[in-house]
């Protein structure tokens, strides 16, 4: 009777399956309303592919990148609220190095005051250190992640303001433009960066034992420690990765607008990232995580937003509409619903098996 819960070997039980189905359904609706929704065209002048689908993936880049880290944080049983603020910090630092002193360098143009390597490197390092700070509070201070990261969520934007004297800098430096607006292999650069990040995180967690350690600590920290896992180090690394990824997302975001925006850059990104992870099937209580699910989750969120824009639903209704669809997806993924479908498919199988 060790088999109290039988695995319904059907994939209908997997949350990722439901996320994929949800995404497919939303796209199908788009297709039915506007058959040209799926069309992709090549623009020789920019050397890039254009189309709604490309746009969805492109625009979801920041959330996808951040939610790779968020997946690990949530798998540890925590949340990181500071990611949105770190996006603003990264943008502020990058623009600071590009323009330095707006009074001296009065007009934005195709130049950078400090070497480009600093423009990109310093924001990433600072964000990684801020992530490390979060991790330190959690691992060594024993503070709950949601509280520990609240600190940087609140003061991160303040730091960004201070760095830029509360001003909004703009730049015209063309190498910087490439990050958010350039292209590679006919695809927008953010997509390329996202793919690299996703692959890198997937390799790091699944080709080493790091993913297993994260899941283990997420399920049972005490037992993991007694099995020799240095839970503290795992937590530090995870928060640092999340900080670093928020930095990358911040660079993409500010390159898109070629400016810094301490108030609005990355606003509510933490919520979207958490949502992407949850839609992707990773449990908020920690444990098993699915990076693939998170990618789908992020795409679903962006598809909904695109859908709203594309079909001219009034802007005021956007948030409500988004909430509605997400509610449906989450209910579809809930335990009772999945059980119900699993049971039905098991029954159907049993019946067809009996008929033979």
């Amino acid at each position, binding site marked *: *009777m*060790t*088999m*109290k*819960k*039988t*695995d*319904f070997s059907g994939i209908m039980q997997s949350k990722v399956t439901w996320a994929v189905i949800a995404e497919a359904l939303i796209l199908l609706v788009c297709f039915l309303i506007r058959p040209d929704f799926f069309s992709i065209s090549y623009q020789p002048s920019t050397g890039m592919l254009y189309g709604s689908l490309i746009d969805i993936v492109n625009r979801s880049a920041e959330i996808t990148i951040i939610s790779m880290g968020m997946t690990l944080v949530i798998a540890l049983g925590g949340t990181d609220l500071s990611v949105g603020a770190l996006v603003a910090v990264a943008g502020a630092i990058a623009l600071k190095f590009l323009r330095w002193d707006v009074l001296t360098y009065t007009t934005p143009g195709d130049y950078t005051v400090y070497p480009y390597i600093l423009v990109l490197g310093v924001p990433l390092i600072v964000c990684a250190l801020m992530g490390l700070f979060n991790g330190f509070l959690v691992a060594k201070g024993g503070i709950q992640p949601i509280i520990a990261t609240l600190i940087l969520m609140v003061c991160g934007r303040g730091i960004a303001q201070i760095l830029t004297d509360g001003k909004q800098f703009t730049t015209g430096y063309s190498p910087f433009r490439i990050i958010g607006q350039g292209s590679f292999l006919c695809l927008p650069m953010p997509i390329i960066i996202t793919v690299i990040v996703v692959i890198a995180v997937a390799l790091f967690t699944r*080709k*080493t*034992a*790091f993913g*297993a*350690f994260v*899941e*283990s600590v997420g*399920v*049972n920290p*005490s*037992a*993991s*420690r*007694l*099995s*020799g*896992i*240095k839970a503290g180090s795992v937590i530090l690394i995870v928060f640092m990765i999340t900080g670093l990824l928020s930095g990358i997302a911040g660079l993409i975001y500010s390159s898109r607008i070629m400016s810094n925006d301490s108030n609005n850059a990355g606003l509510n990104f933490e919520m979207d990232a958490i949502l992407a992870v949850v839609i992707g099937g990773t449990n908020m209580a920690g*444990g*098993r995580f699915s990076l693939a699910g998170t990618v789908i989750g992020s795409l679903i969120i962006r598809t909904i937003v695109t859908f709203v824009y594309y079909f001219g639903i009034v802007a005021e209704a956007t948030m409500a509409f988004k909430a509605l669809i997400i509610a449906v997806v989450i209910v579809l993924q809930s335990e009772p619903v999945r059980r119900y479908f699993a049971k039905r498919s*098991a029954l159907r199988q049993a019946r067809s098996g009996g008929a033979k």
Partner: protein
Amino acid sequence: MPGKNILEMKGITIQFPGVKALDGVDFSLCEGEIHSLLGENGAGKSTLIKCLTGVNRMDEGKIILDGREIHPTGPGNAIELGISAVFQEINLCPNLSVAENIFVGRQPMKHGQIDWNEINRRAEELMSRFHLDIDVTRPLSYYSTAIQQMTSIARAVDIQAKILILDEPTSSLDENEVQLLFTVMRQLKESGMGIIFITHFLDQIYAVSDRMTILRNGHLVGTYNINELGKVELVTKMVGKDMDVIFSLKRAEVKDGAEIVLKAEHIGDASKINDISLDLRKGELMGFAGLLGSGRTETAEMLFGATKTVRGDIFIDGEKIEIKQPFDAIKARLAFCPEDRKRDGIIGDLSIRENIMLAVQSRKGFMHPMTRQEQEELADKYISILGIVTPDCEKKAGELSGGNQQKVILARWMAANPKVLILDEPTRGIDIGAKAEIQRLMLEMCKDGVSVIFISSELDEIIRCSTRIIIMRDREKVAEVDGSTCTQQDILRIIAEGAA
């Protein structure tokens, strides 16, 4: 003696996907009876109880309570019907007072407000019926597990339950507390309540029960009067095969001149341990005896780096080592199966494979991962060596029965190929068949040259297996005796009097 039947369960069948958890089981309970429900882990005891409390829905059979057929739909409904259950894991609110816990959800009211005086007065009255003179306004967490358990029972008494189910109530109680519980149980029995008692301790069954019902693999073996069946017969019926194994176990022997593997000199910490010294030889099995809180577990935790050692030195193979965290201990080839399997041992949501490979992997560090194939080979190897009952190594460890979970943890450490294995209550809460298995494995490892430290509250186990026994009392080692010559009485006397 027992009066008329108050509960009858007939032909209970419960089908879980792929397996019949219960197959046509009959069970009956009389007024004023203590009825033990017995069986190995996974025999269907809990399933039967869950069926009675409405947690599991039965596929066939009927339940008749006081001559009326009932269909409990859930624990709340069961309580309304007069069926109250007290589980091993106490389901009360530790932050509420004892009195609040007893009356939560049905507080007596006065002028539209909760009548606190009445609550506290009645709670005191109830607890004093159990000879417990305690301050019922203190939060529940302030009191010992025993008192917490009594609080659950008091709640059941106050709602005038006809049937009280006690699921492993004694597993975390000490001897005095068990006696107190028994007194209460007898009192309740006198008042006509029917009690269903589930425990792994055979002595306790004989101490309080009137009848017993034995289940095996979801089938009913039989219902017997308590004087009808001796212990050996009982165990035979539970396990379904003759139980000579446990009596044929041979004590771990140490060769003359075997080198000392682990040596601790005057180790201690701030509060839990004063001064412990010991030396463990190769292939030796050392028992730690003593009461709960005497320092048995705390010593093991210090040796393994789970808690900090403040004073003293630890040597492995004659070399002094610093153990600051479990990782250091694992590096030095120490292994530790902790007492609280659920909290500190098993990682429930992960598969058996991952649970087994964990210690090996953590010693290697995450940058040197084992391949999936290596992990599977390792897991399959120990699943077959230890006889872990599972369809495959991908099953969630948390879904296994207690005995099998313990084997998974044992496998985790055996896979790490330790020099010293510390087992803290490895046989607690698992059935007798699995107990014998674990003891056999332990002794076999000693034969292979592993040194084992064995902590148990059950003295007969310790005496049966140990080469030497260290007796602890009040956070100190008070004596060291030879396992082959000492008796339970000797050890109890030392524990009581504090000297050899």
